[in-house]
């Protein structure tokens, strides 16, 4: 609609070095993606808070918290996956720069979550931005006088520990889908591509209500036949070499 003023922040200014395609493919991925990246969050912010806020832009499919590699606790960023592109755009348009949990958050299109990206890439395990933090966005800070706001440690809140509990290492089940459909072919479009993938959780599940047992059985057998998808896979033992050296790539400082 508003084509006269191209919003420069509309497509993300950063380029994730982990993206394997060309710049064009990367842009296409951003233009069709139904994933947003959310940065500058409080470590205490929970998925439920994210859900409450981001569901105001549309139905949410998934939330993936960015976790500190070492502590398995949130480290200030996350991904939200929507069902529709329109809702994704609205999340970027209407939520970026607003406050969640007393912090101005940043919302950007993301080319799609892939297993491994939920781990912070900073040397100490947390988000890179966190270690090199400058003020988030001086524009926004100056407008509302938020600069003055000191986050009071009212927080008797506990960080959510994603590393313990009956489900074991985390997050086990989403691994295969991203690995299969996201990485190698058709970046960006995969959210709705993989038929198997969306049969599981696409809201317009093709099957009839009563078929749910067949659905999950199918799901189970397919998953078992997929070697990458063992829920047991423990991120602690992920192949080395994919983490510490790429510190800068997550730094989403605006080009200025």
């Amino acid at each position, binding site marked *: 609609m*508003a084509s006269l003023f191209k919003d420069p922040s509309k497509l993300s200014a950063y380029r994730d070095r982990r993206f394997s395609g060309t710049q064009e493919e990367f842009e296409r991925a951003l233009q069709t993606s139904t994933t947003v990246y959310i940065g500058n969050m409080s470590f205490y912010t929970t998925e*439920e*808070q994210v859900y409450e806020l981001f569901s105001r832009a549309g139905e949410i499919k998934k939330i993936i918290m960015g976790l500190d590699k070492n502590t398995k606790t949130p480290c200030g960023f996350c991904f939200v996956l929507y069902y529709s592109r329109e809702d994704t755009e609205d999340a970027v348009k209407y939520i970026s720069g607003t406050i969640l949990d007393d912090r101005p958050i940043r919302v950007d299109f993301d080319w799609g979550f892939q297993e491994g990206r939920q781990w912070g890439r900073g040397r100490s395990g947390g988000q890179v931005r966190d270690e090199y933090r400058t003020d988030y966005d001086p524009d926004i800070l100056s407008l509302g006088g938020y600069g003055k706001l000191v986050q009071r440690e009212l927080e008797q809140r506990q960080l959510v520990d994603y590393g313990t509990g009956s489900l074991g290492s985390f997050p086990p089940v989403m691994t295969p889908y991203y690995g299969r459909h996201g990485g190698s072919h058709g970046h960006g479009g995969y959210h709705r591509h993989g038929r198997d993938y969306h049969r599981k959780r696409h809201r317009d599940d093709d099957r009839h209500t009563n078929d749910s047992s067949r659905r999950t059985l199918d*799901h*189970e057998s397919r998953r078992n036949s997929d070697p990458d998808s063992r829920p047991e896979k423990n991120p602690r033992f992920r192949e080395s070499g994919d983490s510490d050296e790429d510190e800068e790539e997550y730094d989403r400082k605006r080009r200025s």
Partner: protein
Amino acid sequence: MSSWRSLLLRIGDKCPEYGTSSDFKEHIETCFGVLRRELEHSTNDILPFLLQCAEQLPHKIPLYGTVVGLLNLENEDFVRKILENTQTNFQDALDSENCDRIRILMRFLTAMMCSKVLQPASLVVVFETLLSSAATTVDEEKGNPSWQARGDFYVTCILSCLPWGGLEFVEQVPEEIERVMVGIEAYLSIRRHNSDTGLSFFEEYDDESGKDASEKDFLEDLWDRIQVLSSNGWKVDSVPRPHLPFEAQLVAGKSHEFGPINAPDQPEPLSQLAGVLYGKQKHHAELKYCQRIHRLNIFPASKTEDMEPIDRFIMEEYLLDVLLFLNGCRKECASCMVGLPVPFRYEYLMAETIFSQLLLLPQPPFKPIYYTLVIMDLCKALPGAFPAVVAGAVRALFEKIADLDMECRTRLILWFSHHLSNFQFIWPWEEWAYVLDLPKWAPQRVFVQEVLEREVRLSYWDKVKQSIENAPALEELLPPKGGPNFKYSLEEGKERTEQHALSAELIIKVKGRQTAREIISWVEESVFPHHGLEAALTVVVQTLIDIGSKSFTHLITVLERYGQVIARICHDQDKQIMLIAEVSSYWKNNAQMTAITIDRMMGYRLISNLAILRWVFSPANTEQFHISDHPWEVLRNAISKTYNRISDLRKEILTLKKSVVSAEDAAAKAKAELDAAESKLTLVDGEPVLGENPAKMKPIKSNAEKTKEEEISVRDSLEAKEALLARALDENEALFLSLYKNFSNVLMERLPDASKAQTLGALKSIQADEMIVDLDESSEMEVDNENGRPKKSQSNGEKASNVYKVGDKEQWCLSTLGYVKAFSRQYASEIWPHIEKLDAEVFSENAHPLFVKAVYSGLRRPVIETSSS
């Protein structure tokens, strides 16, 4: 951006492009000067950009009109092209029913008429074409009055041009414009008064008083404003007239003609002026030609009295267009909103306009969160003025919350909680502390409670608790602290039952990564036979939910891994309802997790929308209808998820249909190629043979086969999707049938006899009347009994006016009827296709008239039909 572009874009703004000047005349001269130089080389760029600016920054149209007027002196041909382009665009917009474009292009034409580019008589011809189309539409014999929305829209467009060019019309073509005005007056006398109570923000309680008939609808109101404008000699403060200083030059330009335009075909006449078909078409027409604003009067008239009636209309046009065209450009949008070219302050009007959009029924042009953002940005852009205006709007709406439409209340709660979360949760809660003295069903009290609940969801309990420290008693309205309520938690001193042991066993199995199948066998072999189904269900559901209780993702993980265990146990609707009951018991302190869990279970098809519906209408929930949003949230989610599934299917079908066409084309082309090749005579060994030589033939043939296969395969997927859609629509019918039956039943049980309460007003005053009879026992006493708290005697006198007089049962009926209307309105397009069935099975003579009225009002269905159905 080259300089002519930014000059065009920024004209009229206080900006670096125009240096220190804020004088329109200088802006126009500067812009024109640069354009004149560039015109020779860049005609092909300037023309579309200029038109784009005029269409997307309509508040600057007078400036663009004047620039075009000056260009007309230099380059007639360029301006002729502008007019030709505009004519094509205008005809396209009429044909494609693009309302915003029609309206704005007519304003642009008017501005060009003012700067002598366009002959006024040509524009009058446009007006007459549209007017005659409108008059035909509402004619009962020749036209189809169910399409009145279109006629009204055309006439609104004509009237909307007059503030921009009324004076010029009267000066230059007085007779012609008078003829148009007479025509409009005639149109107004034939059309039906639009009494759209289904879309009003506030419930009309005295609907029999005839107040509605005397209240002007949008078009009648605009007509009145134009009449006043005309009697003021067409002088308007809010419309700049930048062409005046250039008039002496402009008259020298060539006045072009405007080619003829055609109004779209008239809809087919209807045989009946009432009935289902009429209702369906009216609904359809009103969707296409929807009224873009319903005026919301929040503030006392004194806040806006320095404006003429027409100024209000013009300001609304400006503001709505900025909201429309600068959506997604935060900074531009906020700065345009606050910097409109008018000589008066308009914060109050701006707030009313934005709130009217946030609350617009059936839905706003954009998601409510957009308006939330705009309000935040304006609070930051005008920190001295706007926050107070917003607070004033909140107070005023809060005062009238009992009359506010249910859908609007929900939106207001979501907006307000979100807004406060962006401003450190600062609000003078002490002003509202008195709601604690009101009964728990009083709408103001419910509002406060729901706002606090949403604040907690966006933040956390202690934070919100701290934010109400100036009214600590309100803590009573905070939701519980949100932790889980696990039946088998291993607390000290709590009795351990057999089921505790089973639950512990299940946890170990999950920890040991047993598969769903293994757990199903365990349930079927060890749990179910010895402990019975109910115990098995409770243990499995409670334990799995507990394992997934840590976060949304944990929940999803557990449902993906072990959902089939639940599915195996909860295989029919009754078990699904038991499942929902367990979820709600586990999360009884956390409404959000209850809603999310139910929603995800529906997503995984572990529970059906009908099961959710039945659970929502179970007695325990039904009792909450007027005191909590929780059951409604779950119901809204279930219906919206169903709706989303259907719209996804529709979109996919649309895409597939396009693929079928292109696959057909490809196949036909390949076939033609094959035919050509086959019919070709080739010489083989000197003999003429029919058909291309085999080496060439092979790929052609295989291509033909391949494209044919592709065509068939796309067709198959289309058929499959269409079958799914057909089934989804059947399910939708079942859903709405069940929804309305449930509504009808619970209302029938509680509504007073139809003879006692024929209107909402009568219903509302039942309790009040009883109180008058019972003078001695003050209503405050009852309130206190209800709350079980001692009365604060000192607040007696001053807060007496705040006592809420509607009784428990009556409020239940009012709220529930409000939701009936809200659901009907929101899903009207999905409900209309099933109306015959619903009429036959639910909206019959046996249904309570107030229930039927609420449905009709939500569907915006003419009420005359009650007798005919």
